[in-house]
């Protein structure tokens, strides 16, 4: 770790990706993530990598497919409408068992929506936004430092599971500046060779095929079951944070930037002698269901309130995890509006 420097979220994420071994970036301009491709355009040639501004989001994700399939550490980033365009490619990447990293700096929708922060892409990210039965490893960092730490390791995770990894950020995380300590760059030449990669070095019986087409139902079902087992194994990556939750009567729960707001709200509520606490999922898939189940079983917990910048998406996963044991309520803002800690406090006080 180096000394702390002040960096914009998008730029810090890009630099941490490079230090984590990213060498190939394919992107297309869209607000509010433009600093990522701009940074990569300058940075990647310095480390012997390549940047391409693709003709579309569709082309960009398919360039990721090609580069990842050839064994490179490849990445793309975009914001909501652009991520929608990438869904076909993401499904193929998942189906072809390719590792890659995708950053979504979410803006408000639907449609062209707005450019202000949102968490409206939660469903799309954790339920498989493209066609078919697949999942990604999805992280919802709530600070720039956390985003840096996550993306630095994301390429290792992607390679380990041969799975697309998504960082689900938002406009605030991308545009904000915070002090960060950047990890040291890894030595990419020391990374293990990917024997499955189509790098043109094998032919005949040893040749490699990157493919997601399985025309025989039984063969494809075999693949589907293989994915099921993989997603089961992925549960080892589940991560969360709790804050003042142990004696809490009311548990706020939120991810990403909303979790920071919720944390402030917890402090303000505690000042008013309201026993509030927080559960913050760090991985959105796999979802830390066990943690919710644990707190739902506690006598002191009266209810959960899920806070999101959307009309209510993660709240469904919270309800599944709480499984009817305690009430799970929801408060959200949308359209690019962001709730403030004081606003959350007012909402919570109405509910107790």
């Amino acid at each position, binding site marked *: 770790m180096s000394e*702390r*420097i*002040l960096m914009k979220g998008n730029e810090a994420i890009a630099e941490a990706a490079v230090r984590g071994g990213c060498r190939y970036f394919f992107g297309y301009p869209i*607000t*509010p993530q433009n600093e990522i491709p701009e940074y990569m355009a300058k940075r990647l040639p310095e480390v012997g990598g390549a940047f391409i501004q693709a003709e579309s989001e569709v082309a960009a994700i398919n360039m990721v497919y090609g580069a990842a399939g050839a064994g490179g550490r490849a990445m793309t980033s975009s914001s909501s409408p652009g991520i929608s365009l990438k869904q076909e490619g993401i499904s193929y990447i998942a189906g072809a068992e390719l590792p890659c990293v995708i950053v979504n700096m979410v803006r408000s929708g639907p449609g062209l929506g707005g*450019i*202000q922060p949102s968490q409206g892409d939660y469903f799309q990210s954790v339920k498989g936004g493209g066609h078919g039965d697949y999942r990604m490893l999805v992280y919802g960092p709530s*600070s720039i430092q956390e985003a840096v730490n996550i993306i630095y390791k994301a390429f290792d995770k992607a390679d380990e599971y041969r799975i697309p990894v998504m960082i689900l950020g938002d*406009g*605030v995380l991308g*545009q*904000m*500046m*915070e*002090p960060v300590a950047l990890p040291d760059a890894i030595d990419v030449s020391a990374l293990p060779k990917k024997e499955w990669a189509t790098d043109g070095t094998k032919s005949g019986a040893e040749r490699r095929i990157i493919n997601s087409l399985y025309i025989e139902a039984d063969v494809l079902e075999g693949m589907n079951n293989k994915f099921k087992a993989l997603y089961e194994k992925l549960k080892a990556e589940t991560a969360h944070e709790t804050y003042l939750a142990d004696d809490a009567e009311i548990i706020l729960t939120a991810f990403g*930037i909303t979790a*920071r*707001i919720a*944390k*402030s709200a917890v*402090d303000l509520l505690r000042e008013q002698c309201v026993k509030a606490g927080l559960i913050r999922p760090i991985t959105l898939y796999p979802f830390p269901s066990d943690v919710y189940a644990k707190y739902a079983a506690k006598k002191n917990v009266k209810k959960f309130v899920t806070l999101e910048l959307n009309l209510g998406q993660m709240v469904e996963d919270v309800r599944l995890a709480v499984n009817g044991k305690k009430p799970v309520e929801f408060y959200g803002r949308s359209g690019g509006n*962001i709730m*403030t*800690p*004081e*606003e959350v406090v007012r909402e919570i006080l109405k509910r107790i």
Partner: protein
Amino acid sequence: MTEKIIIAGFGGQGVLSLGQFLAYSAMYENKEVTWLPSYGPEMRGGTANCSLVISDKAVASPLIETPDCLIALNKPSLDKFINNVKVGGTVIINSSIIKEKIERTDVNAIYLEANEIAQKAGSVKAANVVVLGAYVAASKLFPKESVKGTIAKIFKKKPNVIPMNLEAFELGYAAI
């Protein structure tokens, strides 16, 4: 200690960079800080603002509803944020541009002829650094010399503008 500051004005007045000066100053003083700009077409349309939260502990929310301090460099920004300022908070007003006095009496209003002072230092472009000086003097949040060191660090690549900005900072500091 947690200090929440909103800085607002026209694009081109150095609103965002004034925020960054403060953010760097906070970081070099080993404090936690978040700097959050308004972004998108809004910033191209003329007005710009940024929110700074400076704290001894990790900053929970980078968003500000009730700032401890508002730095308003033009009238629309003052009108937009004045009623949000915490009772007992501070409002720094660039009176070179804003001719009216504020109606609120429950805040500490500081009127600063930032443009004229900056002109004395050498360029009206340094008006934001004049305001920085005034803020540092008024808030007593950071040691003066530390902020001057920050200014020198930030302009490392343009060393010829450092003396003028330090002068602007001193004049702003002295104006309080």
